[in-house]
């Protein structure tokens, strides 16, 4: 790749990185279930795996940094940078048939990786979401206030913003032709904010604010930060004549960790907020996470992954309360289970002279998830989704543009709950280039 082209792609990543958080703040709405706990749990392994069910603990691929298993980072040739933005459109429906449509867009993940020694030792860095709270529920009530002699239209917006991010840094190490190991430090941090904005309007003149009424904005902001470690193993069992053919099994374990939390209650708008009550501090204990996955690759054309994730959130402990968790009372947290499978077909394989459409990778996947928090006791929150995507080659070898789609449903309308139907579109830029070449003189 020539440098101007590389710079253009890096520039695109930067623009995406700067523009998307702004877009997210302007909309930032999603499932009401993200009100519970620390927000909706998000997984992101790579743009390839995003289209293949979302996970691939047992998959190694020279074109992508696989965040689900640091052991796969040992197998790198090019220096890589990638960025992913995700747009989501969600439609929620309740038992009465009432619906809400919400849309949002956000920078999802940024990755950077390079080999210290090609296909032996690789370094990976990533910034990606761990949880996200982004919902908006609006109530409108015609309120008669006899004490004030008024009738007003009271609008209350309950909204959630923010979430936990994780900053990953680690390395993968080739130990044996069949075995790689990896270790990664995960800095988990972020702010989760739940707000309640109350506004008033003239009931006869929509949009007109009655005189003598003042809006309020209450916010509960919880800042959390902590570090955990993730170790991974990757075992490769060749099955064919080509080196890349074979079955691979991966296993990762993320340690339990403690997030230090600080909670502040405020009243007022963004730059004019007053702290109310006292600031609360405490520890939030995250459970361990175990993932096991198997992949099968044949002829550089077919790739199959099957994965399972388990996180025992029933052991979650916190000094601070969250929706669904009261340190001294109700605990609706459950063990999280996620199962996924995916398939990739690349017609051209490694034939870079094949027609363009033969060099496009076609991906398909499915996942099922039981969320870590139940909105009602004895009701599990489950998500079932189909994923798919296309990976477009570019003029520059090692660089691809991925377009992914996820369509899913979450929850139920029973027991005064809501069912979400959503689709997400992800766009990723994956840039690969050979760096750190040693100059040779004849």
């Amino acid at each position: 790749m020539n440098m101007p082209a590389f710079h253009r792609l890096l520039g695109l990543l930067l623009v995406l990185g700067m523009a998307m958080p702004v877009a997210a703040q302007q909309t930032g709405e999603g499932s009401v279930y993200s009100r519970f706990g620390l927000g909706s749990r998000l997984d992101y392994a790579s743009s390839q795996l995003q289209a293949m069910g979302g996970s691939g603990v047992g998959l190694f691929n020279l074109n992508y940094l696989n965040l689900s298993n640091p052991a796969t980072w040992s197998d790198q040739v090019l220096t890589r940078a990638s960025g992913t933005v995700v747009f989501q459109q969600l439609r929620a429906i309740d038992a009465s048939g009432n619906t809400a449509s919400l849309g949002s867009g956000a920078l999802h993940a940024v990755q950077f990786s390079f080999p210290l020694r090609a296909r032996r030792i690789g370094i990976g860095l990533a910034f990606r979401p761990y949880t996200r709270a982004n919902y908006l529920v609006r109530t409108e009530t015609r309120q008669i206030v006899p004490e004030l002699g008024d009738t007003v239209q009271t609008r209350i917006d309950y909204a959630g913003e923010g979430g936990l991010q994780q900053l990953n840094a680690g390395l993968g190490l080739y130990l044996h032709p069949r075995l790689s190991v990896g270790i990664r430090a995960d800095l988990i941090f972020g702010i989760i904010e739940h707000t309640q904005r109350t506004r008033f309007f003239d009931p006869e003149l929509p949009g007109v604010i009655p005189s003598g009424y003042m809006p309020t904005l209450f916010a509960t902001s919880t800042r959390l930060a902590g570090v955990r470690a993730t170790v991974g193993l990757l075992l490769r069992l060749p099955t064919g004549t080509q080196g890349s053919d074979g079955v691979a099994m991966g296993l990762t374990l993320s340690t339990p960790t403690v997030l230090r939390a600080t909670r502040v209650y405020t009243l007022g708008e963004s730059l004019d907020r007053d702290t109310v009550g006292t600031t609360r501090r405490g520890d939030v204990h995250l459970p361990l996470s175990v993932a096991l996955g198997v992949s099968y690759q044949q002829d550089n054309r077919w790739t199959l992954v099957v994965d399972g994730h388990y996180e025992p959130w029933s052991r979650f402990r916190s000094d601070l309360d969250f929706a669904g968790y009261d340190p001294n009372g109700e605990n609706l947290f459950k063990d999280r289970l996620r199962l996924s499978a995916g398939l990739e077909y690349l017609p051209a394989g490694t034939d870079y002279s094949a027609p363009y459409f033969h060099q496009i990778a076609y991906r398909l996947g499915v996942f099922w998830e039981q969320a870590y928090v139940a909105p009602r006791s004895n009701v599990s929150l489950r998500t079932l989704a189909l994923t798919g995507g296309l990976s477009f080659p570019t003029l520059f070898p090692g660089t691809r543009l991925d377009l992914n789609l996820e369509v899913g449903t979450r929850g139920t309308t029973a027991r005064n709950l809501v069912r979400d139907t959503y689709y997400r579109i992800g766009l990723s830029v994956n840039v690969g280039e050979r760096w750190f070449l040693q100059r040779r003189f004849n």
Partner: protein
Amino acid sequence: MRRSSVWSCCALLLLLATGCDDPSAVGIGLIGEEGLPVTVRLPADSVQITSQKDRTGNTSRVLAGRVVDPLTGTLAATGYVDFVMSGTARVDTTIVGVRLEMPPDYVYGDTLGSVTLALHDMPEDWPYAGVGTDTTLTAGPLVRTFTFAPTDTLVQVDLPAAWIAAHDTTFRSRTFSTSFHGFQFAPTEGNAVVGFRFSDIRMRVFTVTDTLTLTASKVLTTVAREQAPALPEGRLLLQDGLGQGVLLRFNFMADSVREAGLHAAVLEVPIDSVQLKQTPVGFVRPLPATVRLIGVNAEGNVPVTSLGEPIVLATTTPEDGRLRFRLGSTSLQTLQRLMLGETLVQYFRLEFPTDDNTLGPLLLYTAPTLRPTLILMVTPPSL
């Protein structure tokens, strides 16, 4: 398909993904409606009379007379009026007469009888700006007394020939405005205080050939209470013209309002309008046209915004047996800060605006159940 077509399709998909938001109450069952605003009543902790300077200089009217009110006691009002001659006006022929013309626009007392006032010269210049109603000014010799009915639409007072002759040089002087100091109107007889509209008070100077009209340049009213009120038990008298105010203190740290989000507020002050309406035949006791609510700090000063407006300010008119102050946005913001523990103002003061000079009385209740009460629409904090 060309590559450019592929990227166009991608862009179209992204645009489709960013659809419009249509939030609704779907999912409210997962949140609960704990946040609906509620109204809270916050009675005043203390209600006490305070004294302040009531300024009547150059207000809209000047008062004069004495009223013996069976409810509020006896009040005597003395008025002062000065005149100015315009720069071009000249008295250059013989003065044949001088008349004062004063249109009444306010009566407090017996409207069936008559009122007699004594007209005195003022021997020297007298202050009016910043002067309280309890000021005493020394008057000059009596010019004459005059009697009129309180219901007259215009009171005319012809000045005696001796007074005209004594002031002939003054009228012809180029320094009339500085050498003439006006009149005092002192109560003599009658049972009413009458107000004369400042802007319409005239002194007409009749000469052989012309009539000169002099307008009032300054007015002042001083008021003295000559007999204490006879109030029913449990009442508090707040009367205009006497430099009175009522200080109200509220406990904004009460659990019901502390750190709550404030949306709207009304201060309701019950008044005993039944007692105020009970008057002898022909006796009128007008209520104050306007009552003002203002915030004062611990030092008794009025904190103001960067624009110079008081940070708590509202006005109202007595109606339906109560004063009802609706607070505007600046006042609401101040109350919100008080509810968050700040002490921008210490008291709320009820007082009468100084631009409307009356003797209007208000009877407030002192019983705890009828105390002034703030009605606040708030969202309780969800801590």
